[in-house]
C-alpha cells in the first residue's frame, strides 16, 4: 500500500489537472473576496446598514465549496480515467498489487487532492478577506467547525466520484459522468433547499387598487408547497445526507446539523468505498 501511495502522490504532484485545480481554487478565493470588496466600496451606504458579517470575510470563505466540488469532479474523472486510458493500472495488477489496495490508494490520493483544493480556497479567501475587508466576525471555533464539516463533505463527495470513475473504464465517459453527477446533485440540493425554505403560511396582506381605489385584503393562509410529515422528513434527511447539500448549508453558514452531516459523510465514505472495492474486484479489465 505504501508503494502505491508513493507512486500516486508523485503522479499527483506532477498532474497538470491538479495544478489547474489549485490555481482555480486560489483564484476563486481571491475573486469572490475582491468582488465583495468592490461592492462594498461602490455601495458604502447600503453596507453600513447591514450587519457586520456582510462586510467581513466570514460570510464568503465557505461559499467556494459548491464550486470546488466541480473542480473535484473534473480532477477525479481525469486522474482516475487516465489510469484506464493509458492502461497503467495494469502495471500495478501485473506485479501483484491487490485491487483493494489499488482502490484505497486512489481514494487517499484523490481525497488529499480534493481536500487540498478546498483547503486552499478557504485559506486564500480568508487571507484575502482579512487583507481587503479587514474584520472577521466568526469565532475561531466556528470557522474550524465549518471547515471540518466542509472537508468531510468534500471527502464524501470524492468517495462517490471515485466509485463512479472506477466503475467506468472509458476516460472520457468517466469524466463526463462525474461532472454530470455533480451537476445533478447540485440541482437536487438547490431544489431540496428551496422546498424546505418555503414558508408554512402566506402572510395576511392589504393593498389599494389604484384604478378603483378599492382596498383588497387577504387572510393569512397555508402555503400548499410547505412540506409536512414524512415528506418533509425525507427532504430534511436528503438535505443533511447529500454532500453537495451539506456544502450548500455550510456556504450559508447554517451550523444546525454539522454533527449529523459529518456522521452521514463517514457513512457515505464507508459505503461507497466498500461498494467501489467490490465492483472493482469483479471487474474484467482490458
Amino acid at each position, binding site marked *: 500500500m505504501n508503494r502505491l501511495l*508513493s507512486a500516486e502522490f508523485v503522479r499527483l504532484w*506532477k498532474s497538470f489537472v491538479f495544478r489547474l485545480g489549485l490555481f482555480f481554487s486560489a483564484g476563486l478565493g481571491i475573486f469572490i473576496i475582491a468582488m465583495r470588496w468592490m461592492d462594498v466600496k461602490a455601495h458604502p451606504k447600503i453596507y453600513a446598514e447591514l450587519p457586520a458579517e456582510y462586510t467581513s470575510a466570514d460570510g464568503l470563505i465557505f461559499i467556494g465549496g459548491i464550486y470546488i466540488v466541480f473542480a473535484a469532479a473534473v480532477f477525479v474523472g481525469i486522474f482516475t480515467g487516465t489510469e484506464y486510458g*493509458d492502461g*497503467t493500472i*495494469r502495471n500495478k*495488477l501485473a506485479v501483484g498489487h491487490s485491487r483493494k489496495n489499488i482502490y484505497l490508494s486512489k481514494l487517499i490520493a484523490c481525497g488529499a487532492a480534493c481536500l487540498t483544493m478546498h483547503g486552499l480556497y478557504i485559506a486564500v479567501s480568508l487571507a484575502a478577506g482579512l487583507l481587503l475587508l479587514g474584520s472577521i466576525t466568526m469565532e475561531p471555533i466556528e470557522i474550524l467547525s465549518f471547515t471540518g464539516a466542509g472537508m468531510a463533505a468534500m471527502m464524501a463527495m470524492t468517495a462517490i466520484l471515485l466509485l463512479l470513475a472506477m466503475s467506468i473504464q472509458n476516460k472520457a465517459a468517466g469524466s463526463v459522468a462525474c461532472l454530470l453527477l455533480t451537476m445533478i446533485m447540485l440541482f437536487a440540493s438547490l431544489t431540496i433547499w428551496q422546498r424546505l425554505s418555503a414558508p408554512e403560511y402566506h402572510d395576511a396582506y392589504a393593498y389599494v387598487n389604484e384604478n378603483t381605489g378599492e382596498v383588497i385584503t387577504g387572510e393569512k393562509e397555508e402555503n400548499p408547497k410547505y412540506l409536512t410529515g414524512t415528506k418533509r422528513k425525507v427532504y430534511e434527511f436528503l438535505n443533511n445526507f447529500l454532500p453537495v447539500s451539506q456544502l450548500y448549508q455550510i456556504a450559508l453558514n447554517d451550523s444546525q446539523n454539522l454533527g449529523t452531516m459529518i456522521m452521514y459523510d463517514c457513512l457515505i465514505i464507508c459505503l461507497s468505498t466498500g461498494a467501489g472495492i467490490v465492483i472493482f474486484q469483479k471487474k474484467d479489465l482490458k
Partner: protein
Amino acid sequence: MDYILRTTALNKHYKGCKALHGLSMNIPKGSIYGFIGKNGAGKTTLIRLICGLQEPTSGEYTLYGRKNTDKEIGKSRRRMGAVVETPSIYLDMTAEDNLKQQYRILGLPSFEGLVDILKLVGLEDTGKKKAKHFSLGMRQRLGIGIALVGSPDFLVLDEPVNGLDPQGIIEMRELISNLNRKQQITVLVSSHILDELAKFATHYGFIDQGRMVREMSAEELNEACRKCIHVEVSDTKILAHVLDGMELEYKILSGRDADIYANVNVSRLALALAEYGCEVFSMQERGESLESYYVNLIGGAKNE
C-alpha cells in the same frame, strides 16, 4: 522440466461468448514461448488472466508453482513483467519518469539500473520528451522497459511487434532474444506474425477458438517442417539399402514412398537404384514453413 506457467483446463466466458475453452499450456523455464493464434483465438484473454486483469470462469493456472487461487499469487506476479496489448505508459511523463513510477510501484529502494534499462530499450536519449510524442515503436520499447523494472524472470509480451516498421521489428526481436540469452528471462510472446516468431521462439503453443491445438518445441517443429526429398520408387527396401550405402538420412513411409532428409545427387541415386532394378517414379522437394504448418494444423483441428 521446470515450468514457469502451467494452465489446466482454463475457461473464460464473457456474455454469450467462450473466449477460452479448457486451455492447457506449459511454459518451460528459460524458453521463448511463441503463442500463436489468429485474432480472437484467445491469446490476449489468457494473458489478461495470468496478469490478474481478469479471473478465469473455471480451471486454474500455476505461476511459479502458486495456484491462481492462492492468496500469495501476488508474490509470484512480482517476478513477472507484462505488456498487454498496448504499452501501459503515462503519456504525460518522460521515459525516465515512467520507469521511476514503476520503481515506486514495486517499492524498490533506489532507481539503480534505470539507465541500463533505458539503454537496453534504446530510449536513453529521449531526455525530457514526453511519451505522448513518442513513435509507436518507442512506446512499445518503453512498455517493455517498464515490464523489465525489478528484473523479472518472466516477461509476457502481447503482440509486441504490432504496428512496428521493419527496423522496429528487427530491434524488438533482438531485444527479446538478448533478454532471453543474456538474462535468462523466460518470455511468453503472442503474435500472429509467424515468420517473425519462427526466428527466435524456442517453444510454440498453437491456439484456436480458445483451445490449445498443439504445444511443441522448436526442434519438434523443425522436425515437422523439415525440408526433404519425397521419392516414389518401385521398392523402398532397395531404396533403403542404397541410401544406407550413401549414408543419407531417410524415412520409409510405405512400400513405394519415402522421404530423404539430405541433398541428394539425383543422377547418382537413380543410377544406383537402376543397378538393383528399382524404378524411380517421381521425386519432389517438400517442406513446410511455420505458416504452412500452422495453416495445416488449424485447418486439421477444425476438420477433426
